[in-house]
């Protein structure tokens, strides 16, 4: 169970404060896979960062009684100078996991071969992504936070990742943010829409997708309106 109560998050910008999340209250029940839809810049990643505890809200409370992952496949937490093995060890230690099986899983799943003992900065971006996913999957979480769920690597890795992901879904919940209704439809059974700082939860994922499509349609229309207006003004200026 994850609960947000009157959560507000504002960032300072050069042109004054920008409120990303505006007094959000929502209850995400355990046992459901929730997909949060939002256009680019709607605050999806901010929401994930708040949930995983990387950032604190300006006001309001976030409560959860489950072990939440960090955003899946996130690559920020690794030290380039250390090898994959050492980075994996560090994660195992801070999560209190048994180091040996953890390392073995990461080594096997990432398929880095002898690069596993090379510094991470020598990895190609594909290798780095494989490593990051392997580490996220090695830790045992009650709920996985997933940002965009973009599978990485070649087709074979994608398949293996998909398989491991399905396996985790059997025992753990998923909380996914995406701007793509298809990914949400595939992995989630409950939906929410994040729009202009507010979140609306729908018990049925299809309802959430409909609401999201509606927002996109009206946004497109507004853009078209602005464009035609602009054009007519241009015409006036020309004549």
């Amino acid at each position: 169970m994850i609960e947000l109560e009157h959560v507000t998050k504002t960032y300072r910008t050069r042109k004054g404060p920008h409120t990303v999340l505006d007094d959000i209250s929502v209850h995400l029940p355990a046992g459901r896979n929730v997909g949060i839809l939002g256009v680019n810049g709607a605050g999806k990643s901010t929401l994930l960062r708040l949930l995983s505890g990387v950032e604190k809200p300006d006001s309001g409370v976030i409560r959860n009684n489950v072990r939440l992952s960090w955003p899946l496949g996130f690559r920020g937490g690794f030290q380039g100078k250390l090898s994959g093995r050492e980075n994996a060890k560090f994660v195992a230690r801070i999560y209190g996991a048994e180091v040996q099986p953890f390392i073995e899983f990461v080594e096997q799943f990432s398929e880095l071969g002898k690069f596993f003992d090379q510094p991470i900065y020598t990895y190609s971006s594909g290798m780095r992504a494989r490593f990051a996913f392997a580490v996220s999957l090695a830790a045992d979480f009650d709920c996985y936070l997933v940002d965009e769920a973009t599978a990485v690597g070649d087709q074979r890795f994608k398949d293996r990742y998909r398989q491991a992901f399905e396996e985790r879904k059997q025992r753990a919940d998923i909380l996914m943010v995406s701007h793509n209704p298809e990914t949400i439809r595939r992995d989630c059974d409950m939906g929410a829409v994040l729009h202009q700082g507010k979140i609306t939860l729908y018990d049925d994922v299809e309802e959430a997708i409909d609401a999201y499509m509606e927002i996109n349609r009206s946004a497109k229309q507004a853009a078209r309106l602005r464009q035609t207006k602009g054009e007519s003004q241009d015409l006036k200026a020309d004549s």
Partner: protein
Amino acid sequence: MATAVSNALAIQGRVIQALMLRETKTRYGLLKLGYVWALIEPALQVGVFVAIFTLAGRESASGMPLVLFLITGITPFLAFRKSLQQVTAAVKANRQLLTFPQVTLFDLVFARLWLEAVTMVVVFILLVFFSQYLGEQVNIENLLGVCIAFLLMQLTAAGLGMLFCSLTPFLPSIHKLVNPFLGRPLFFTSGLFFTAEMLPPAVRDLLLYNPLLHLIEYLRSSFFYEFHSVYYDLGYAGAWALATFTLGIAAMTVNRDRLLNR
């Protein structure tokens, strides 16, 4: 409740331990011998100063044997300076680790502080043993006093370091300014190479505003049977340590979000 607290403590202990292991690895290289270098480097630094002063013909200071006089001044000061630098840069160097929800700002600070303090205590012990091996008479009068002085210096370093660290969002290069603007002046005014007694009264009154001078005087008074300074005020230095440490913690807490987002 009790289990929740002990649980949280267990996590924090685990995190700090993991951070220390990791710092050791990144800083001292991937060789198994890396940590030995961490001991040799400061030991050499002290050794160079001892050599210079011995060759310059100084015999002893206020009745203390010269080598031990220098060791008891330079080593705790280097420990202070290193901790100050490390804590000031703690968040800048490791911000990416804060993505793991278990890792807090204070874990980054205390992992570094511990690593520096433990290393320098070991260096101090090694140097004292080494000088004994070379023929110095080592009789410590009050070991507890030595420990208290060392501890208060580390607390002050941590406090100042956290204060500076919390300024990182406003002044990103602050960790480069700490040594030239604070470390170096303190190096010459904290009594590493002199005792308060040897100073002209006017200078002494001025330098006694520096809490480190008090602590080094106190440390030497505790270490040597031959030396008892009348100039140190442990309450004054203790107040400095407590005040900077509290302010440092407060500044980090207030600036938490800025430190995380930068």
